Every structure is written in C-alpha cells, then in structure tokens.
C-alpha cells in the first residue's frame, strides 16, 4: 500500500524534529546520569559512589528534608486543590474573576514569587509578622527564615500557594467530566450532599487525583527554586533538599559523577513512589 507508506513517512518526518530534541534533551540525560554515577573521570568505579552516598550525612539530611517536604506539601496541595475545585465548580456571580485569581500563581515565576515571599517573611519589615502581631497570634516578631522549623513552614506555605492551582485545574477538569445526570439520579434516590460527594464525586475523580498526586510528588522531590531563594538550604542546612545539594556538588565542588549519583537515587525514588501510588490507589494507567 504505497499511500499509507507515504503517510507513515510523512508522519515520521513531522515528528522527527521533536523526536530528536526529546531524545537529546530528555532521554539522553537520564541515561548519561546512569553512566556518570558508575564512573569517576570516565573510569568505571562500580557502586563506589552509591556506597559514599549512603555514608554521607549531608545527603541523609537532605533526603529527610525532601521527603518531609513532599509528605507535608503534597497532601496539602491535593486537599486545598479539591476544595477550591469544588467551589469553582459552583455557579456564582464573579466566577470568572475568581477562577482567574485562583489560577494566577501557577503562571508566575516560582523564583520571583519566592523573592516576594522572602520580603513578606522579613523579620523586621515583613507583613507576615505585622499581621500576626495585629491579630495577637504572636507576641513578638519572629525570625521566620532564621529558625529551622519556621523556615520549613515558610517554604511549605510558598510552595502550596504556588502549586495548588495546578491541582485545582486538573480536578476542575475532572469535575466537569462527571455527567450531571448521575447527580440527578442519586438525588432522586434521596442522597444528601455528603453522600453525593462520597458516592459519585470522589470515585469518579480518582484518576484525576492520581494524576495530580503523581505529578506533584515527583515535582516536589525535585524542589529547587523556592528553597534556593527563600533559605538557600539554611539555616545551617536544615532546609536543604536533595536538589540543592546536587547543585552545590556540581557547581561548587565540581563533582559531576557524585551529583549524578544523587540524581539517579532520586529518580529511582520517584519511580518507587509512582509504583506505590498505582499499586494502592490506581486502577488506570497514566494516559499521556
């Protein structure tokens, strides 16, 4: 069939530039990381880097910080995203404006907004302290970015503010895909709001929640911009995630293969997360 053969050639020609770019910029680096992690100055050194990694206290602490960050920020984003999506799904006056503002943080540069948050959390001139003092929640100004626990809180707040819109948009799409007849049918059967949510909304939203969960978790494992700007990993390394340690390793200590080893570790970690999510929560494959 010459025609379909032509069509195949033409199709291949159309995707070829994208194919090359994706191969070079997305696939090759992952494979190259793998090679780098087993070598030192182009010499094969086996798993020495990985052994070093597991003895590295700084790595352990950055791994702990990363996991803690994921564990707190991702569920918060999912919960708030669900609440916002449910509200934005309602018909009400000014809905378009509200949708725009709720979506807005997603469109703004993370690093620039982290700078904005840094000023908000400033210990002397920050508006965050000022509001809390006025509401008498705190008695004296706190050094938000100067103490480990408080700094961690600030990072989470900035991240949740920035990333919840992504979850909201996905879940809003999910809500819009639920046929309204289902709600009518179950209302006829006398179900109340909570039952409708539990019996229809939540089960039908599950694939969308799963996509949001997978994407947000993997992205959170690589969090960089906001922490680099807000605390630089400090005070005293207490908020340093893996990505900041990788950055330091590569650009300050110039240890490329050790940096790659950490990257391979987080790569495997994210695959394990995805596997667990699908095993325990998903019954549907990611559909690109």
């Amino acid at each position, binding site marked *: 069939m010459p025609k379909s053969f032509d069509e195949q050639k033409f199709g291949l020609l159309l995707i070829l530039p994208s194919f090359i770019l994706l191969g070079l910029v*997305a696939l090759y680096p*992952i494979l190259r990381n793998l090679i780098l992690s087993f070598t030192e100055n182009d010499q094969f050194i086996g798993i020495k880097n990985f052994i070093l990694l597991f003895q590295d206290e700084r790595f352990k602490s950055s791994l702990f910080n990363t996991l803690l960050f994921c564990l707190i920020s991702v569920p918060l984003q999912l919960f708030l995203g669900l609440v916002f999506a449910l509200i934005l799904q309602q018909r009400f006056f000014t809905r378009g404006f509200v949708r725009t503002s709720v979506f807005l943080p997603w469109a703004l540069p993370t690093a620039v*907004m982290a700078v904005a948050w840094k000023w908000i959390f400033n210990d002397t001139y920050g508006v965050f302290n000022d509001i809390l003092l006025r509401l008498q929640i705190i008695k004296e100004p706190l050094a938000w970015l100067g103490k480990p626990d408080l700094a961690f809180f600030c990072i989470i707040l900035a991240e949740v503010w920035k990333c919840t819109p992504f979850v909201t948009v996905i879940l809003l799409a999910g809500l819009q895909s639920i046929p309204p007849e289902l709600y009518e049918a179950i209302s006829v059967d006398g179900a109340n709001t909570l039952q409708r949510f539990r019996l229809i909304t939540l089960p039908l939203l599950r694939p969308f929640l799963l996509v949001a969960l997978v994407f947000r978790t993997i992205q959170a494992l690589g969090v960089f911009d906001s922490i680099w700007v807000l605390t630089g990993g400090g005070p005293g390394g207490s908020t340093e995630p893996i990505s900041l340690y990788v950055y330091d390793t590569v650009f300050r200590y110039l240890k490329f293969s050790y940096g790659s080893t950490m990257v391979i570790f987080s790569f495997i970690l994210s695959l394990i997360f995805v596997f667990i999510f699908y095993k325990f929560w998903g019954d549907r494959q990611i559909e690109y």
Partner: protein
Amino acid sequence: MSTKKYRFSPIIYGLTQISFYLLVIFIVILHLAPFLWQVICSLKNVDEIYSLPLKYIPSKISLSAYRDLISNPLFLRYLLNSILISLSTTFFCLLLASLSGYALSRLSLRFKTFFQFLLLIACLFPQIIFLVPLYELMANLKLINKPLALVLPYVTFSLPLAVWVMTGFFQTIPKEIEEQAIIDGFSRLKILTKIILPLSRPALATCAILIFIGPFAWNEFLFSLSFMIKDTSRTVPVGIALLSGASMYEMPWNKICAACVLTTLPLIIFVIIFQKRIIEGLTRGALK
C-alpha cells in the same frame, strides 16, 4: 427541580450564601495577596519601605523605584534576554508541537508509543534530573551563556503540554474536510499548511500563551541559573533572585518589589485577557 431550595428557610439560605461569598473572597485574597503586597511596596519610596509601623497604603505614591529600575542597564538586559529566549521558545515549540500534534492525531504513525513515552518523561520529572548531563552537553557544544542553551531545553520541556493541546484540537476538526481535500488532489503537506493550520489559529494562540506562561520560557529558573553564568546573559527570574540574595541592603526592597511586579505583570495581563482560553486549553489537556 429539586426540593432542596425549599428545605431551608430563606434566612438560612441567605446565611449560607453570605458565608459562601465570604469564603470565596477569602480564597481570592489568599491567592492575590503576595502579588498585591509587592505592588504596594514597589510604590513606596526608600524611606517608607524601611519605616515602622508598616503602612498598608503608601503615604505618597512614588514611582522612583520603577524609574531607577528602567534606567538600570543590567535589569533591562535581563528583560531583553528573557523576552528573546521566551519568544523563541514559544515560536519553535509551537512549530514542533503543531507538526507532531498533527501526526499524532491524523496519521498512522510508527514509534507512536515510544514518542509518547518520551513526552511523558519530559513532563513528569523535575529539572534537577536533567541538569548535570545537560550542563555537560551545553558546555561541549560551547553554548554556555548563549540563549540557545536555554531555548533547546525550554522547547523540549514545553513540548508535552503543547503537543497535548494541539493534538486535542486537531481531533476536533472534522475528518471530512481532509478527505475532500485529498480527493481534490491536495498533498498531505498542503492539507496541513493550507487547511489545518489556518483553521487552528485559536488553538495555536492558546497554545502559545500556555507555553509562554508555563513553567518554562518566561518562568524557568534552575537551567537559567546554571547555564547563564555571565551577568549579561542572565534572565529576569535569576537576576531578581540574585539581587535579593547577597545582603538585604544591596538593593532597596522597593526596587526589588518593582522588579517583581514588572516581571509578573505581563503574565498577569495575559492570564486576565485569556483566562477562558487558558483554563479551557488546560482542562482539555487534562481531560485526555
């Protein structure tokens, strides 16, 4: 109609309405507050921004921060770099995405699964996974400090969303149009350039906006920080982050706030004007 409306007395109905709107207002404020605070602070003069107690409305609106900023050649350079890089990213990504989107939606394609797998890799993992080998690659290609070092990865990592949107749109174009064109003796290439692309103008516009305001192009931070080492080749997010970094008094905060506002304002205007399209584009993508 449901009996629900009559189950409650008008007073309770009114109260739920009021509390619903209060909740909505609270959510909107929460999302806009960091940005609005930047606007307020950017309109203060240097004395006022470092004075206590904090003023929520500047006593005298001062544009001095903006004036200083616009006459700062380095900041203008950052802006110029960002505009150049994100516009070329948007253009090339749009081009590649419409070609491959057409191939994915219309043609029988070999390697389709593998191509989609590559797209998934590119959109799933955070930048840090790709950083080390990409840096190596850019250094080998002598692209460090050159705009191309950012355009290449930006186009690649913006592709998944763009291909998503374009494929989704092409699928809504009736097949009959093309069948008729084939009978009329149009080649596939002619169909694409003379019929499909002109029909797709609205989708192309949506797609372009999504690329521009997405996590790459205008907003990206890590690659820009790593690949653009020279002061004059930096992009705005990195420039601002570095300005606010070293010491608090290096640049007065009203100027930093003004820089944040100038950087985010174009995005906000985009989002306000194209709100409907953006959310539709994203939800259509997420629905797939």
